[in-house]
């Protein structure tokens, strides 16, 4: 056939080299793909889609990232975006000062649950209430990954961590904070959503959430927030391959995914959970 491409692989015989990835996986805004995070970690996936959205919105020469402290901090050496390294929990205030002085830039924070919901809870709440025109991105795995798997404020009931070995118990350790539900109702919040990167459909949905959050900021509509559930098999003490399943079975039923606020529409996590259950019933 005349239209056979020259570079098509022959299929008449077994391949003479193993299968390999094709197409562009590395975002343009990543200097290189090497990192020291654990196998099965969800954070590199979340950072990839974050960088892709910056590029797709044409903001690669206009973005400033304010980075918290956690495993993801390792990516400050490879993210090819202007960055400011903040203290644990303090990124929203740093973003506030930077955005006020550079109102035309795309300003985002990158924080973990230990950073945002433990150490710096009041920072993000005040920043949202003030309606600062910044986007705070939370990588939530319900555990302090960098210290090796300790309980955070988002650890769900029953979850085993190194300082809740029998599982988080409400009586002894209190309840997890659903940070999105604290931020969404505030007057200054324009957009709030909770996504996940445990499977491909959720990666796509979460990427759209980041895009909507950035668009809200670029349109000057106020504070925007995207929470991303990420796998941490090391900190969850599960085999690498079971990370996505554990996220779906243990974290997602509490930190339900979906949009919490988009303009005037405000939805609570209980409604998201009810919608997920209805969808499940429909499938059965």
């Amino acid at each position: 056939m005349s239209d056979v491409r020259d570079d098509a692989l022959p299929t008449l015989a077994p391949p003479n080299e193993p299968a390999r990835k094709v197409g562009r996986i590395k975002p343009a805004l990543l200097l290189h793909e090497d990192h020291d995070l654990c196998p099965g970690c969800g954070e590199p996936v979340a950072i990839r889609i974050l960088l892709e959205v910056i590029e797709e919105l044409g903001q690669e020469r206009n973005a400033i990232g304010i980075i918290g402290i956690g495993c993801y901090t390792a990516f400050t050496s490879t993210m090819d975006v202007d960055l400011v390294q903040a203290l644990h929990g303090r990124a929203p205030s740093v973003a506030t000062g930077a955005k006020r002085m550079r109102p035309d830039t795309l300003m985002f924070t990158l924080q973990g649950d230990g950073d945002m919901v433990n150490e710096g809870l009041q920072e993000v709440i005040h920043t949202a209430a003030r309606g600062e025109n910044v986007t705070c991105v939370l990588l939530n795995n319900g555990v302090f990954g960098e210290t090796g798997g300790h309980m955070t404020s988002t650890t769900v009931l029953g979850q085993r961590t190194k300082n809740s070995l029998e599982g988080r118990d409400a009586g002894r350790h209190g309840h997890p904070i659903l940070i999105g539900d604290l931020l969404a109702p505030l007057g200054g919040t324009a957009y709030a959503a909770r996504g996940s990167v445990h499977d491909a459909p959720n990666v796509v949905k979460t990427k759209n959430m980041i895009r909507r959050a950035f668009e809200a900021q670029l349109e000057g509509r106020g504070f925007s927030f995207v929470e991303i559930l990420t796998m941490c098999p090391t900190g969850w003490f599960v085999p690498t391959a079971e990370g996505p399943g554990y996220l779906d079975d243990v974290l997602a039923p509490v930190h339900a995914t979906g949009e919490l606020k988009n303009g005037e529409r405000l939805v609570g996590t209980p409604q998201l959970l009810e919608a997920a259950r209805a969808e499940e019933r429909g499938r059965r």
Partner: protein
Amino acid sequence: MKPRLMEGSEAIAEAALAAGCRFFAGYPMTPFTELLEAFARKLPEAGGVCINAESEIEAIGMAWGALATGARAATGSTGQGIALMQESLSEITRAELPLVLFHMARGQGDYFQATRGGGHGDYRQVVFAPIDVREAVELTQVAFDLAERWRNPVQIHGDFLLAHTAEAVEIAPLEFDPLPPRDWAVDGSLGGSGRSRNINPIGMEKGAKGIDPDSFWKRLQAKHDALAAETARAESEFTEDAEVVVVAFGSLARFARHAVRALRAEGVRVGYLRPITLWPFPAEAVASAAEGARRVAVLEQNAGQMIDDVRLAVLGRAPVVAIGGISSDEAGFGIGPILDPADVRHRIASSLGDPR
């Protein structure tokens, strides 16, 4: 420009604006509150931003962000609020950002906090202790220049009297040598270029694997050693033939200087030395003033803090005695009975072994 009668808080804010400060964030606390009020009034008129931060920790975080974009920015508080800022202060020093910090202290009990700091790790900050509003106007402008020149935080250490005393001052913008370009600041423009920036306190380099704390900290130490060698300032009077040299700083030094001048006029061989910088401590000036003196008398309004630095500077050349002490008003704002010319004169005269 004619001198105007202004409270210290207002004059300092105007001096900061004259020095190009365009961002301020703070949380109210006596006696710092009026400085925040002055910035809140004046900065928007100058096209700047003043944020009434929800806490001191958030205030310094906001200043951090503004500084990272290359803006001249400041924050401030009182001892307790400055205590809350310590983690950020030490990190901002390591991130080499030019913060100016206004500390309106309650008395002089925060000398250790200002000169040693309560933050983690090895870090140093220049601390100016102005004696009056006129000097505060000058040093505020010097602080912004020095902070940017060295890319290191500088503190203006005042107190209730400085913040609230009205004096006739002229806010004349000072001229400084040209500064290097602010090519370290982030504006987002280098994203995707392979040369994007990362303003960070750990010496993290883009593209590098891991960090090198050892060489990073040693480089900062060398900078702080040079800063110490070049920025110490002191004022002295009558120290050449003084039997007793009085060492005092800030508002209390104004009383000491007055008393020493009065005693000199009566023929008493007493001298006066005032550290203008608390860090770097003007050790050489103190040492040479102590040469030949019978006694060095430290007048400070606390349980004895600067006296440690004086002893280290004097190094046994003369006995060092404390003639100050804790002296508080009913509210604990640092305006105690020691702030009285007769009281100070009596303390100095007593240190001569000749009460009068």
